[in-house]
């Protein structure tokens, strides 16, 4: 989209043959070529735009479609010989520039309006009209801005070096997939290394123990450990989980229902009261907060 506009500008400037402009056009052309290599891709990328254009400029749409069609055919004919095509197509592109540019201006307007959309949707149609009126002015402004913007930093495509950017990601992708065998080998290596390390650690520990002849005994607070820390198997009595399970089951199978004894009822009542009280406090706090936020306005 942008390229089109730029191209048009280069047309407008016509005689203004600054080296920079030429360079710009050339670099743009390069991109263009890389774009059009995949006809469908570009077409698809454009479709959302086209839809909108359809609404307003049906005729124009046809033209674009034709153009795209033509350029597609051309590309198909030239595939593989892109470098040659580049020079040839330059002329075509530039001549088709203004049409493209016009279209793009339109769609640009749409996107702009819509970009501001969340705030100004209501006034949209009005604004659009305005935009159209001012669009010529804007182009002038843009041109000026463009000139001022000549210090825009150019980022290279990064295809030359693999340190950053797209090229790096692609290389990383392939490097990460060395094949199943290689991966298996790496894992095996890791596992042996890992086992060795474990073995070594164990030996060290044993050696330490053997050396001093004693180990530090740490005082355990609380329940006696029932599992072996290393293997994770239960060595002592029942595990806590099982115990809890049991307790839970036991509770369920009480003979008399809850609330049979007076103390139970009293307890239940008290705890419920407590729960309610805490809830009430909570609610009170929340209401204060909500009130601070002025939430009681259902309109």
């Amino acid at each position, binding site marked *: 989209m942008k390229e089109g506009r730029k191209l048009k500008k280069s047309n407008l400037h016509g005689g203004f043959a600054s080296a920079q402009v030429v360079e710009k056009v050339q670099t743009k052309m390069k991109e263009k070529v890389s774009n059009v290599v995949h006809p469908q891709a570009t077409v698809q990328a454009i479709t959302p735009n086209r839809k909108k254009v359809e609404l307003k400029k049906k005729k124009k749409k046809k033209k674009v479609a034709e153009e795209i069609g033509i350029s597609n055919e051309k590309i198909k004919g030239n595939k593989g010989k892109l470098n040659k095509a580049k020079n040839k197509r330059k002329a075509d592109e530039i001549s088709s520039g203004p049409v493209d540019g016009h279209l793009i201006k339109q769609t640009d307007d749409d996107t702009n309006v819509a970009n501001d959309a969340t705030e100004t949707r209501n006034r949209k149609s009005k604004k659009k009209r305005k935009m159209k009126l001012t669009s010529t002015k804007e182009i002038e402004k843009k041109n000026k801005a463009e000139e001022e913007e000549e210090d*825009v930093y150019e*980022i290279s495509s990064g295809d030359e070096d693999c340190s950053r950017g797209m090229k790096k990601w692609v290389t990383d992708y392939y490097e990460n997939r060395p094949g199943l065998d290689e991966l298996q080998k790496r894992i095996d290596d890791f596992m042996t290394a890992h086992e060795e390390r474990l073995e070594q650690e164990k030996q060290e520990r044993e050696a330490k123990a053997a050396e001093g002849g004693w180990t530090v005994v740490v005082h355990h607070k609380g329940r006696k450990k029932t599992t072996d820390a290393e293997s994770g198997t239960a060595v002592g009595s029942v*595990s806590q989980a099982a115990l809890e399970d049991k307790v839970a089951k036991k509770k369920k199978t009480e003979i008399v229902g809850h609330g049979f004894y007076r103390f139970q009822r009293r307890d239940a009542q008290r705890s419920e009261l407590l729960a309610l009280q805490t809830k009430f406090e909570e609610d009170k706090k929340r209401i204060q907060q909500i009130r601070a936020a002025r939430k009681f306005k259902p309109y």
Partner: protein
Amino acid sequence: MEVDTVTDSRIQKVNSLLKDIRIDYDSLSKPVDSFVSSIREAIDAIPEGFKVTSELAPSFVRDIGADKVEFTFKKPNGFNLCGSYSTRCMAKPDASVDLLLHLPKECFYEKDYMNHRYHAKRCLYLCVLKKHLLASSSVEKVEWSTLQNEARKPVLVVFPVKKVDNFPGFSIRIIPSATSLFDVAKLSMSRNNVRSVTADGVAQPTPTYNSSILEDMFLEENSELLKKTFSVWKELGDALILLKIWARQRSSIYVHDCLNGFLISVILSYLATHGKINKSLNALDIFRVTLDFIATSKLWERGLFFPPQSESPVSKEEKLQFKELFPVVICDSSTLMNLAFRMTSVGFHELRDEASSTLKCMKLRDGGFEEAFMTKIDYPVKYDHCIRLHLKGKTAMSTSGFCLDKEYWRTYEQKVHSLLEQGLGDRAKSIRVVWRNTNQDSYVESGLSVLNREPLFIGISISSIENAFRTVDIGPDAENKTEALKFRKFWGEKSELRRFKDGRIAESTVWGTQQWTRHLIMKQIVEYILKRHLSLSSDDIVQLVDQLDFSLIYGYKDPISTSGNLLEAFEVFSKCLRGIKGIPLKVSSVQPLDSALRLTSVFPPEPHPLACGKIDAQRLQRVIPSCIPTMEVMIQLEGSGNWPMDDLAIEKTKTAFLIQIAENLQTIKGIRSTATENNVDVFMRGYAFRLRILHERGLSLVKREIGPDPVKHVSSADKMLFIRSQHASMINGLHGRFPIYASVARLAKRWVSAHLFSGCLAEEAIELLVAHVFLTPLPLGVPSSRINGFLRFLRLLADYDWMFYPLIVDINNDFGRNDEKEINDNFMSSRKGYEEDKQNISSAMFLAAPYDKASEAWTSLSPNLSELKRLVAYARSSANVLSKLVLQEHNDSVQWECLFRTPLNNYDAVVLLHREKIPYPHHLLFPSELNQGKHVARGKASKAFNPFLLPGDLKRSPEELKKKLMVDFEPTKCFMSGLQEEFGTLKAWYDHIGGDAIGLTWTKHNSKKRERDEEEVEINPIEMLKAVGEMGKGLVRDIYLLKSPRFL
């Protein structure tokens, strides 16, 4: 005792609400009185005795069909204040004070009740007043309005020049009353008073017309009665205000053919005078009793009758007659008129529904305060299927004009309703047709036809998705000749005679369509019926059904239509996995994790020709994407004691297992795969599945015992896997219960990512939010359409009080009291820091699900407070736009697209990407451009990557081609992770589905930290952005700087 005061914290809320909504009458009485008296002065100054003719409002007089309307002007018989101001029951933002004006008897003849003469004179009288009021210095402007949307009964709204400070929009409505103007016997319900109302030459009774005049005659009396009841009972007044708030929030019942403030007070005073409410009740109790009365009372069947003033009680015959003429009867003390004469049975039904659903909410644990008073239930959120008919200049006028017994618009409403009711049958649970059309100020001057400008609104609640999506409607048997004829007459060429499986031969209609467009069947039917019977064109009928589908469709169809293949492929794949023999531990179970496998993915992967077993040379002719997304699948292995102990080693062992599985599949079944050190991806029938192993320890989470016990230690990877599998299976179940769930979730996800929130809100969190919309729909019904569900999702995001409440998503309905308490405790602890510092909270959006009661899974880190704030703001604005789009006239697609088009000027800097370097360019909704801010950098596209295979590639051998296929390669994600690593001070907003724009904002520093930072590094935003560009070179197209960080 104590419990009583404790239980209802609701009462506190109600009191606060009342405090906010009540009006301070003491400070008001002075300005109101002075304005009223200045109005009276202005009116009294009108000279008497001049002749008033129809010239003042010729088109109005013509349109209501009145003859003989001349009269000589006399001053009014007096004024008095009435309505909610006089009973001190106004509820903000109401700001109009009703002023009754007694029409002088001298202006009317005895027979003026005939043929709309009264209505015409009434209007002309007001025209005179208007002219003179406009000349008064204290009047700013005078507007026309109507009494209860009845066009033939205009009223004047007068705005003062002097504004009252704490009473914005203050105005006075001048309502003419006609006390004892006519002989009431002439206006009894069985009489005909509009001569043109005939059937086959026989005059028909005109009960609605008669009631319209009687209403004016008893206005004063009834308002006095209300004043008497409400002035001595404060709680009753409070209850009235509550009921008004309640009703106003529900636009489907606070409308001309249902409830209004006057009727509410009438019902309340009925209850009061009949001892249904006693003085000990508080306002909230009265509110509840009233709702209960509305929802369940049997009295409605007989009708409500106030005790008559005269001694003679209402006879049975009279009662029966009222009941025959009107669906709802509230007879006033004069025993002559039905105060609810405008109410329709549909409206009343709707009212009862709303009342009972509110009562249901009030029985819930938190008392239903939010649902009853704070939740807006307007048409877009209430109805699944909304339709607008634009009838301006389209309706064939009935020959005898706008006003007969009923007004023309009311008759048209009825007609449309009965047509739709017949056409939709059991597909619709309820159909509401409302033509709210009297907001036109100029209609008195320019005639009643301008009232057609407003669109007629139709709201349909769908009964069930199965019904709505049914493709064949079976009509009467062919043998039943009369019924069959009727059916054919209704459906026209759409009806066909069919023989069904059970041998029946019957008339039927068939609505053929594809699986993924079945939500359009109702649309098809409605359009057909309305076109056939009302001779409307398609342009006049706007149905809000498929306007959002553009965001889910590419090409010509919804990609979800290929999901059948996908699920089949998954089935075969899991069978393959379970059947593998050559590995040490067999695969014991296979579970889907990816959202595509539960149909909630915005773009489920489509079969890729290069990911099939055999490469079909012919299919390669098309354009082939070079990337394929993966879908995660979780497997479990048989139990074993030989697993290593530490986490890293476990993960390695898992990969080793997966590699073995992959090799096994390759050698035995010839299924290809590719692997990295962390992932193994298997190609199956054109899809790529990524395998994950859940370690058996992960299963201990089922019992929900995550103690400090080292045995129970579960690595975070396993925990996450377990949570995801739980989530997947629960959502899958949900999809079975609510067929429309998946498409709403897809829309919601599309919206979230389109507004660049992909980094803030996990897909699973979105699924839970949408699930909440379906699981806790009260006070509404379960959503049954995309637009409705989507709107409710947006409203949930926008309106929920995220700071003070956890959102509990009880998927399988199994939370008990203890669970709720646990969740609440977790929530409270996450908000612990709030008191000291409002920023200091975790899980800004607290989502509790059955598998995750502490909101750890999806929202513990993001969205954070500021992200949530942004999200809520976006949701609110989108919800407003969507509601407006449903209700109002815009129907160009651009407006709808705005919902998904994010404004780029809300970021500090914007990075635009090369569109043709995004792996799935067709997922891009709108190409982004920017022409504001400073253009910092411009990048060239890389040649290293293309989203489609080059024509040259296609010529290569299949083996080489296969290598070209990139699995789960997403440059945007690579770029994002790079950004996160290297630029901590930048917060990036992106769209993971396929956007070409990334928004950047500078993260705020703590003030202390900032001081230090300033000394250490001076950050130059432009240099920084350049570095950003360098990092994403080949992908980054342009970088714009919109706002520099504040510390510079």
